[in-house]
């Protein structure tokens, strides 16, 4: 079942994996909402997150920081955060910050789902 939590659509994949559809922006205006939504998922047992950036026109430093926060939370529990369907504005941030070293990227949500199953 798909849920919308504070502006982010969250879709279960398996018992411990979800897709979060980021939407138009992840920036200083909604980073706290993202963090709260992700934390709620972690509390309910989710360990792997597929972030869908297909429609994302803005990822700023605060938005990236909220993703780092999620990564810090799940990586000690063998969890992971991966990027899917990365838009050009997000790719520019990924390249500038070299975060491709940390977050695996997939061309589509489906490819990420297959890899994480």
């Amino acid at each position: 079942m798909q849920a919308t939590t504070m502006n982010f659509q969250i879709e279960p994949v398996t018992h411990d994996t979800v897709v979060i559809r980021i939407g138009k922006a992840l920036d200083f205006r909604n980073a706290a909402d993202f963090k709260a939504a992700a934390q709620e998922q972690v509390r309910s047992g989710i360990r792997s997150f597929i972030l869908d950036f297909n429609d994302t026109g803005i990822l700023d430093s605060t938005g990236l920081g909220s993703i780092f926060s999620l990564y810090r939370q799940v990586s000690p529990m063998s969890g992971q955060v991966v990027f899917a369907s990365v838009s050009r504005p997000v790719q520019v941030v990924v390249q500038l910050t070299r975060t491709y070293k940390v977050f695996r990227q997939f061309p589509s949500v489906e490819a990420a789902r297959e890899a994480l199953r």
Partner: protein
Amino acid sequence: MEVTRQHFNGIAEVIDDLHGLFEEWEREEALLSHLDPDTIQLFRLAVHEWVANLVQHADFADREASITMDVIPNGHRVRCIIEDNSEGFPFPEQIDIQRDALTPFPERGMGLLMLNAATEYFEYSETKDGRRRLEFTVSSDADSCLDIPFS
């Protein structure tokens, strides 16, 4: 050389207005058509980070925020001047402080570093009439990065 000047009054909607403008420019393929698509996004990111910094941290001392942005295309570069009527920041000194304070996978404190990495050159000053002025260029040739600690 074509110069485009934009005015923004008030702080509440400035980010939405700004990105609305960028979307219009990209749709029309006019103002920034001399730049490759990645450089346009880098420019947009630099502008966003600075204006986000103003929205979150600037002290306008009970004045309505007044922000102007000049965009000056120049070959494979774009020059930008953003002026505002805030009290200003200890910038660029703040950049060194933020860089030294970076922890692995930082949650905050990357904004000015991101601006620094996205731009080829920048200068922050006060104008004769007391406004704060950030001038920077973004170039297709630049290959800089923000060195975030990952361990």
